[in-house]
């Protein structure tokens, strides 16, 4: 399941970041100057898959809740979405047109675009933190109690 989610996120982020296009033809293009962005997108997608899968398992299977950190994971995923969608060539213009060329929405879109690197790194940090805590929680919760007896 985490692979499926990671692939889905990868498809979306890589599309938003303009690493592939689907119209008029399906074409992929990776400029060497943007290889680090590609790597970041794939890493965020992978950890989003892991965190969401672990969260789903926690919700469905465990009595133990780590509500605070689960929320952190969801925040990480939301932030990753926002950062992934930022450079989208049609998002900023859409925001600009929706909000008026100098309006708040356009400014927001431009800010997201300009600070996409720190936003993406922050989301990756949140995802890593959540994955770490979830792994520890699940490991503790799934520990088979040792019976001491005669």
């Amino acid at each position, binding site marked *: 399941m985490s692979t499926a989610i990671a692939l889905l996120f990868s498809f979306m982020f890589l599309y938003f970041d303009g690493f592939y296009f689907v119209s*008029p033809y399906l074409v992929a293009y990776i400029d060497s100057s943007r290889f680090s962005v590609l790597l970041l997108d794939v890493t965020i997608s992978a950890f989003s898959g892991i965190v969401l899968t672990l969260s789903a398992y926690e919700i469905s299977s465990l009595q133990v809740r780590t509500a605070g950190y689960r929320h952190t994971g969801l925040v990480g995923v939301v932030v990753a979405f926002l950062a992934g969608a930022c450079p989208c060539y049609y998002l900023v213009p859409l925001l600009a047109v929706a909000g008026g060329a100098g309006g708040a929405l356009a400014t927001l879109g431009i800010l997201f675009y300009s600070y996409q690197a720190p936003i993406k790194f922050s989301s990756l940090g949140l995802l890593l933190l959540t994955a770490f805590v979830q792994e520890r929680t699940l490991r503790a919760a799934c520990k088979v109690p040792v019976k001491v007896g005669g």
Partner: protein
Amino acid sequence: MVRRNRRRSKSIYILAAVLFGIAIVAIAYFATQGLGDGSNSKAYPLSVLPQNPVLGSKSAQFAIFEFGDYQCPTCDYWFKTQEPSIVQNLVDTGKAKLVWRDFIIYNSDSRLAASAAYAAGEQGKFWQFHDLLYTNQGQANSGWVTTKLLISFAQQLGLNVTEFTQSMNSGKYDSLIDSNFQAGQQAGVQGTPTFFVVGPTGKYVTISGPQPESVFEQAIVSLGGG
């Protein structure tokens, strides 16, 4: 309780699989939409007007219309990574001409930059000025487009600065800039950069975003460019 949890897990797996499937289908659908047989039946609202800057031979069979904004970072990215090879392989060879149309989406600085480029065009230096704008692009809506900067570009290009400044500030290009925007909206432009590769019969292929040169070449082939 265990059975309920197992059912819930199964539902989550099914949901994930469905979402993944939808994503694949959506990508496949859009991938087949613009397949280049050039059979777009819409009458195209684009034509090369006398006041439109044209790079290359005006008699070239194919026209590549670019709708862009001088403050748009993805337009800048395309300018720096793809335009040089498109100019070299398609424009300089006489196969296609590049036609600039403004599609202003940022603040009034974009309009000022556009007016300045047209003012430079009066002295035969539109494309050089256009290149300087992209080469020196700052953050959108940050106020990087200043009269001082534009005049420095004019000086760099050896333009008559007095004539250039008068023309830039006269407002005479506002109607052209507005009509470019309207033409873009009519043609379905939703973001920048957006390109229309128009063939000699009037059929065209829409290319949205900073796509690589190969897409433009394929578009020309699909429109009968061989």
